[in-house]
């Protein structure tokens, strides 16, 4: 048996990290890739089925309305601001600042969910009308599940911060949550173009 020799002591290494140094960041990226791909697949189905129609939307179906969806895009972009602050405060381990920013973001996101409720009818078709309607509702529907899960996650963090249970690792997790929101908004932008602008261009 060869003798064991200690070559370094790791006890002074940090035990909370942010960003790519943190394993949970990597896990978050993994879920983002998975869910992003899910949205890509829905968009693929929407585009693939186009070839079975002379027009998108099919004759008899009006173009999707732009009013509510445009407001939604605007509100989503606005929601980025408090999330940026939440991320900054979290990196500084500032519980009060993070909590305030998250709460503002949460209110805006609840507004987004309400707007989403009215965005579905703005498609001017039903999920069971035809394949175009099914595909459009499905693209929006899958993205909506991301919205709902993110709002739930935010509410959870807000609760943890509110009740004073935050640990340093929690702040690292908040930063991951912020990145996830960026992804959720960024994923919506091309989907908005696909569902509401693309039918006007073709």
């Amino acid at each position: 048996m060869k003798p064991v020799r200690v070559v370094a002591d790791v006890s002074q290494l940090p035990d909370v990290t942010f960003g790519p140094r943190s394993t949970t960041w990597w896990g978050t990226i993994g879920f983002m890739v998975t869910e992003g791909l899910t949205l890509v697949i829905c968009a693929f189905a929407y585009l693939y089925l186009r070839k079975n129609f002379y027009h998108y939307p099919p004759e008899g179906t009006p173009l999707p309305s732009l009013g509510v969806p445009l407001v939604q895009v605007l509100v989503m972009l606005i929601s980025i601001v408090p999330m940026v602050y939440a991320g900054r405060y979290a990196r500084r381990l500032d519980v009060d600042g993070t909590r305030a920013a998250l709460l503002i973001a949460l209110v805006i996101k609840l507004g987004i969910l309400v707007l989403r409720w009215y965005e579905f009818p703005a498609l001017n078709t039903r999920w069971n009308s035809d394949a175009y309607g099914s595909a459009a509702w499905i693209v929006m529907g899958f993205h909506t599940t991301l919205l709902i899960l993110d709002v739930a996650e935010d509410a959870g963090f807000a609760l943890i911060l509110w009740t004073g249970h935050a640990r340093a690792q929690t702040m690292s997790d908040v930063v991951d949550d912020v990145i996830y929101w960026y992804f959720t908004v960024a994923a919506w932008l091309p989907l908005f173009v696909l569902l509401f602008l693309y039918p006007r261009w073709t």
Partner: protein
Amino acid sequence: MSAAPLPDSAPLTPLSADPDAMAELERTWRSSHTGLWGWLTTTDNKRIAKRYIITAFMMFLLGGIDAAMMRLQLSRPENHILGPDLYNQFFSTHGTTMMFLFAVPMMTAMGLYFVPLMVGSREVAFPRLNAFGYYTYLIGCVFLYVEFLMNTGIDVGWFAYVPLAGPQFSAGKRADVWAQTVTFTEIAGIIAAIQIIVTAFKQRAPGMSLDRIPLFVWSMVVVSVMIIFAMPWVAVGSQFLAMDRAIDTHLFNPAEGGDAILWQHLFWFFGHPEVYIIFIPGLGMISSIVTTFARRQIFGYAAMVLSLVATGVLAFGLWVHHMFATPLPQLGESFFTAASVTIAIPSGVQIFCWIATMWTGRVRLATPMLFVLGFFIVFIIGGLTGVMVASVPFDLQVHDTYFVVAHFHYVLLGGAVFPLFGAFYYWFPKVTGRMLSETLGKWQFWLFLIGVNVTFFPMHILGLQGMTRRIYTYLAATGWGTLNLVASIGAIVIASSVIVFLVNVVASLRSGAIAGNNPWDSDTLEWATTSPPGPCSFPDIPVVTSRDGLWERRDDVPVMTGLRTDRREVLVTTLHEAEPESRHMLPSDSIWPLLLALAVGGAFIGAVYTPIGLVIGTIVALPIALGWAWPKAPTGPEMVDDVR
């Protein structure tokens, strides 16, 4: 901040030499509860992976029984053992079980057990998520077979083509059961994949740079990336199918602009990488076994890694070769022929490198090595018929016939199951502390080799004689009876080899030779710790100084120390050079993964019967997720104020 190098004047004691620290470490890592509660709350990746392996093996046995019933029915023309409805359920369940419930989970489970050990890490990156993944998978297995026993078993094949699986032609819940079974396995698969990637990239032992990672770990990383990019296609597709059936969407309904071929694209974009997901871990296992039993490192490490990556990437460019009989443009089809042929090249490179390794090594023919030779004998036949079916005109003759059944059983049995059994014999000592019997191992090997060939070789001929797939019977006048009988006899031989294996396992668990840390004198890090590894696999953090691992000529064993013993910690290292970067605290045992799996499982099972099931399940799951995420009081400075 990096690890503090030691001043020469104060050498530290390794943890393993400090009995009080070891005792505290043991207490910290051991399951904090006993009995059933302890069993349900453990997050130890080794225990979770063992459950995965056992469950997946049981699925292999059940899938084998499905196959035995099929072979029984087909052993004679116009047989009456199984009518069409029951036969259709058996072949659909056989395919779904083997592909979704056995092969991929088994391979990811081997990764979940051995990747952390091989990279010198104590745990996977997300232990509770790991447990959640396993419980989700288990619920999927139970769900499928309970439904089968309740006459709601799936009957549209493992591929569930529409419109047959759609609302108009598949009454009842059977196709919905298929769709949601897929969901369970997809969730578990993606979770396992994320674990493996993050563990392999961020938790390697210091000094294990990227070019020192064992080939098995590389194979599992490639497979994990493939899982993330492949499984969502079938998961989303199956939800589309479930929606077409439940809430009247029209994605696959040609009458409303939907498209039956859309399903095929969605399914096969997953389905082709899926078979490589099953096959590539086998390649990694072969590299581990050949290294050990030829007693040298695999020749051509860089070529081997590049071949694994190339195979994984190319696998995503082949899917249309399952669709050559559909009305697709010929030019497009030619691309897929070229790609399907090209993927043989990296596999060939690996085979040539293994032969070179054996040629210049000193081979010991223990049972694991026999199964490797079995891979060569069986897989290469499958690979050669694979290149044949890459040809469009030839494929149009043998597509959907028993020729293809022969082809894919040769590649899957040869490319995945032979290496898997070899890996079982190789790693059983590490997992259990005992050796499997070599005598029984040789018996199993020969029975399996003969059985596989007797069962599946005649099927090449049957396919060319016109026997199509998925038929519950055939006319005597076709002349297919003789070869079918031969194939069915071969199935009996396969079954007996599996029985020999089970006997070997049971007997060896009781009275097999004690293994010791490194019975095969192998080089990778899992052999540096005890057999079986303790709850904390590596009390001392191993340090890696070359690709040779334990074979490196040194007079001492370098380690690092400094992880806390009063809570579970793993070392996080950098991506490229594996320099120590931070310490990561892992959660202790928890019931939340099981509860969340039950909620999510309930949501998807409920969705089979009513769309509201999904909503209710989600509402139940959210507070459970909050419970999971709620921070628990750790020991020591951890409050935000303290850290700041």
